[in-house]
């Protein structure tokens, strides 16, 4: 009888043990599940933040970016008339822009092209400010801010297209911006280009005319497009886009460099007499 009880007790021990094992295993498994289920969720959070910085709500003509204080031109006596060209080699850094099948990268070519355009502009007596010197990628607003801090400047952003007839070049000016409610007389940063649209069109037509003389098949006048970079730029502003990264040999694009540079410089020189510069940087004409 006693033996039987013992036997029962002996039998019960493994059952309890299994229960304990089960409990411990369950706790450990639970912890593993919690840990591993958190891991994939952390992915997007730790990924690169692709959101662009929120632009300032509005910029008065007087408000300048930090670059204004360090600009080599701010210390110089203010000259009247157009004397500065802000050159923007588009893209840069992780943003390569258009890429050709032959490995041509827009961001690299426009940086080299900017040097040629710079030299041609300097020969025409312009001072040149670049939005980037190397393989950096300033935001659209940072690039616009470089231009908006200057007095008597025009803005030229340089691009290479993915499409279009190779060996041609197109000038774009910003499309009309839809009207908005009163902004207390200040130029809203988001629509800084609006007061300059007429001047941009004139500047664009002059540069396009020069380009079309050199590159047959290019359009006769500047085109309109909703170019993000131009919208926040408070100066006569154009985009010059060259066709294209689809060329088999990048030498074809390199050969266009001197002609592009000369056309932009001559276009800017021709535009100079028609630009009455406002008293403050970025102010409406």
């Amino acid at each position, binding site marked *: 009888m006693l033996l039987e009880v013992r036997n029962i007790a002996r039998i019960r*021990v493994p059952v309890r*043990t299994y229960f*304990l*094992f089960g409990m*411990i*295993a369950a706790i*450990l*498994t639970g912890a*593993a*599940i919690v*840990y*591993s*289920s958190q*891991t*994939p*969720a952390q992915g997007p959070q730790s990924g690169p933040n692709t959101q*662009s910085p929120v632009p300032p709500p509005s910029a008065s003509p007087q408000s300048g970016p930090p670059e204004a204080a360090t600009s080599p031109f701010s210390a110089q006596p203010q000259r009247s008339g157009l004397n500065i060209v802000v050159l923007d080699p588009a*893209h840069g850094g992780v*943003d390569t*822009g*258009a*890429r050709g*099948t032959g490995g041509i990268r*827009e961001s690299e070519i426009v940086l080299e092209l900017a040097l040629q355009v710079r030299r041609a502009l300097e020969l025409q007596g312009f001072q040149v400010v670049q939005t980037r010197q190397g393989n950096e990628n300033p935001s*659209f607003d940072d690039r616009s801010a470089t231009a908006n801090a200057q007095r008597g400047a025009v803005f030229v952003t340089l*691009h*290479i*297209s*993915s*499409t*279009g*007839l190779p060996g*041609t070049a*197109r000038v*774009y000016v910003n499309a009309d*911006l*839809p009207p908005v409610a009163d902004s207390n007389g200040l130029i809203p940063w*988001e629509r800084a280009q609006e007061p300059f649209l007429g001047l941009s069109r004139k500047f664009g037509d002059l540069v396009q005319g020069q380009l079309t003389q050199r590159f047959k*098949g290019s359009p006769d006048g500047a*085109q309109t*497009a*909703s*170019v*993000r*970079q131009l*919208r926040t730029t408070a100066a006569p502003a154009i*985009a010059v*886009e060259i*066709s*294209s990264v689809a060329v088999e040999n990048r030498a074809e694009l390199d050969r266009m460099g001197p002609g592009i540079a000369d056309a932009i410089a001559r276009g800017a020189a021709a535009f100079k007499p028609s630009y009455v510069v406002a008293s403050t940087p970025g102010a409406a004409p």
Partner: protein
Amino acid sequence: MTARWKILLIGGLVIAVVAAAIYFPILRRRVKLAAKLQQQSEEQARRELAQPIAINPGDPRVKAKLFWASDALDSTLAPAVVELPLSNDPALRSKQVLNTLLAGPVDAELRTLPPDAVLLAFYLLPDGTGIADFSEALATSIPSGIASEQLAVDSIARTLEANVAQVQRVKILIHGQEVETLAGHLDLTGAFVVNTRPASLPSKPAPSAPTRAPGMLTPEKAPGKLAQPERKP
């Protein structure tokens, strides 16, 4: 008894730890796979929902004007007339014409939108603003550049203008989100003007063609003569 319990307890713990160590990487892989599958099935569901809308044979057949790239002029659009049964409901009609635009012309070279892009949704607000929500591919597969991006947006705006009088402007979203640019150049923060004229045609939505859940478009039901979508190399 107590010593035995201790041994059993330690033994149990050791086994549990070993078992957990073996099971942990397997579990982690399975959880990751499950998350990926869920993501894929969500995207699949969205794509299936967004498949071209079945054409209602009861809809009146009209000569729709679709704007694809011109084969004569560089970086310009040319209208192509395609006979389609189109709904009188402006939102549904917009979806039908945009899906036809996405399907592409006979000559795939004249496409303005990437072949893998999908219209996920189209809403028409009472003020005449159309909200066109496209899949990520519209931004990632389009050739980057001012000319190509402007041509894509123009083809959307002009196709809506030619076929849906009620759409006054169009706002383009990518996967439900407002984005700064289409592919690095074209400004998508605002809406594009489609039509400055007041809406006149069609006069009222036909009661026989209510907005319904989009169905699948089989090749047999594909509107007009359309090229098969092709991926660019």
